[in-house]
């Protein structure tokens, strides 16, 4: 399959600009994941707004899906509960609109590919843009099979975040860098989402390889759960993505707890140069 999309004409990614600004200020971006509809739709919106107000730079809003192969037990449990509560795709757009009405923080949706396909790729892109969303993170869509999304995101002016893995070949890293917009999602370890005591040293190598492939916006995700890990990752990466730890805080202690954790993580993302 040929990839023929051209970089946007006049389009600037707010996600990319946010990450660049954080780098320029001597730190890096903190990207926080929460699923829509957990524990309820309104609480998920409140939680996303609160983590933004506590210092999360970019919100990754997950759409619950019946077969989430990249997710570990914490996120699986949360998204299954959201589905059991009656989550519908339209709630995703409602949530993006409600969040972006309250905070300026860019909101990327994270979704498995089939819901987008069924909704209609162009319709999905239009509705996401209309809701004020910045783009999509697609964990089970690789650029090789993504031509229609490349076209739709180009037309609608949306970011598209593809994944890069420690196992990816150099050619595939170049492809991920070239096709992504906003940032490249560097998978820290071979595995699925979930807190880990050590963030794999493979992440550092992967980010170095992404730099060689031309990336100026490489964010690391999977296994990051503490302010110290955020700080460590931002020594070499442009952003750190935290998911399961935030979801667990929300599950255990509600909006107040997730807001507190977000503030602690955000402190880890600032003034890296001073700390090192």
């Amino acid at each position, binding site marked *: 399959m040929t990839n023929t999309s051209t970089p946007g004409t006049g389009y600037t990614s707010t996600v990319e600009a946010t990450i660049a600004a954080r780098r320029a200020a001597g730190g890096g971006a903190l990207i926080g994941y929460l699923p829509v509809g957990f524990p309820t739709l309104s609480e998920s919106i409140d939680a996303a707004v609160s983590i933004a107000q506590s210092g999360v730079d970019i919100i990754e809003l997950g759409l619950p899906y019946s077969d989430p192969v990249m997710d570990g037990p914490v996120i699986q449990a949360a998204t299954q509960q959201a589905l059991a509560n009656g989550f519908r795709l339209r709630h995703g757009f409602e949530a993006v609109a409600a969040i972006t009405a309250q905070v300026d923080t860019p909101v990327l949706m994270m979704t498995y590919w089939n819901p987008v396909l069924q909704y209609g790729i162009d319709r999905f892109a239009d509705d996401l843009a209309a809701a004020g969303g910045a783009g999509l993170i697609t964990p089970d869509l690789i650029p090789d099979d993504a031509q229609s999304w490349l076209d739709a995101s180009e037309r609608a002016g949306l970011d598209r975040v593809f994944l890069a893995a420690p196992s990816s070949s150099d050619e595939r890293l170049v492809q991920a860098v070239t096709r992504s917009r906003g940032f490249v999602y560097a998978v820290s370890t071979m595995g*699925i989402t979930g807190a880990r005591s050590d963030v794999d040293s493979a992440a550092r190598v992967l980010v170095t390889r992404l730099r060689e492939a031309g990336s100026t916006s490489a964010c690391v995700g999977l296994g990051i759960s503490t302010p110290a890990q955020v700080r460590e990752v931002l020594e070499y990466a442009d952003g750190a993505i935290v998911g399961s730890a935030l979801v667990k805080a929300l599950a255990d202690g509600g909006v107040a707890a997730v807001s507190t954790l977000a503030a602690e993580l955000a402190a880890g993302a600032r003034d890296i140069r001073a700390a090192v």
Partner: protein
Amino acid sequence: MSSAKPSLRAQSGPYFGDFGGRFVPESLVAALDELSAEYALAKADPAFAAELSELHRSYTGRPSLITEVPRFAAHGGGARIILKREDLNHTGSHKINNVLGQVLLTKRIGKKRVIAETGAGQHGVATATAAALFGLDCVVYMGEVDTERQALNVARMRLLGAEVVSVKTGSRTLKDAINDAMRDWVTNVETTNYVFGTVAGPHPFPAMVRDFQKIIGEEARQQVLDLTGRLPDAVTACVGGGSNAMGIFHAFLDDPEVALYGYEAGGEGIEGLRHAATLTKGRPGVLHGARSMMLQDEDGQTVESHSISAGLDYPGVGPEHAWLAAIGRATYLPVTDAEAMDSLRLLSRTEGIIPAIESAHALAGTLELGKKLGPDSIILVNLSGRGDKDMETAGRYFDLLDAGAQQL
């Protein structure tokens, strides 16, 4: 044969028409590329073919027989019905054909651990068997619902040395077992090969599993020619993910005079939601790494399937079947739980062969087809597995187990 018409047999992915591809996390792409490359080398290597062929002969018991079943066929309009006896393979079904191929490939790649998903337990048992034969570590993922209804197969796998993981997420059936196997593979891909059980999943699995199963049709095509002097009018098989059906269909794809029929699980009836009739009632979508037909709601959430047969209880289907349906080369029809169970009993009582409930779906469909095609017709049926594993389900269904049991 017209030279203008491209061979349907030559399709080898990643796409079959609009179906197939790779919809997987980036982390798996390197492993899928490695598998594709190694498989291409193995396919061209006479030593690989010789080793697999020797295993088929001395371990599985191939070639499997064909058996004509006139007493059964009398209930199907008098058509000549011929069974391809995959039930006689070692481990009791066609699944061993694919597993031996993939385990030999695992050995070639140099990995020491295999994982597999299983629904009915047939693929899990076959994988555990091959892992024992080659001294590999083996973990089988099986939905909790299936570990309960196929408890004896769980015991078989454990006896063979495999670890059986009971999957408690989602609908706790085959689709969730595949999700967990994929999560394991993403995490352990450096040491582990995923021995996928059917012609679904990301490329190269649909084409590779088909290739390892196509021996069924290649043998049967010649066997039917030898027995009857001509090709059958129709070839039939049950379809869950679709590996036994692709296995017997493939040799006949370029014989336009041979009709191909796949029978899906109609469960309690396709008017409601309790069925697994993916090609009859599904829509195109992406599930488990490929674009194919699937049962889903308006939002693209996978809908839970239902079948009395654990092996057909799957909301997706292999992309090559979706393509064969789309181009009209094969026809797919639903068969209900009740129709399948009636045929299971009928074959048992008329021919002394107890089929797997999966295969009984093909038998039920074949009886109806026989009435349509008439007494001069010849129908080849893939009897994909034997019914031993289903005795508890059949015993309960027909009330054969307790003190007040029916004497049928």
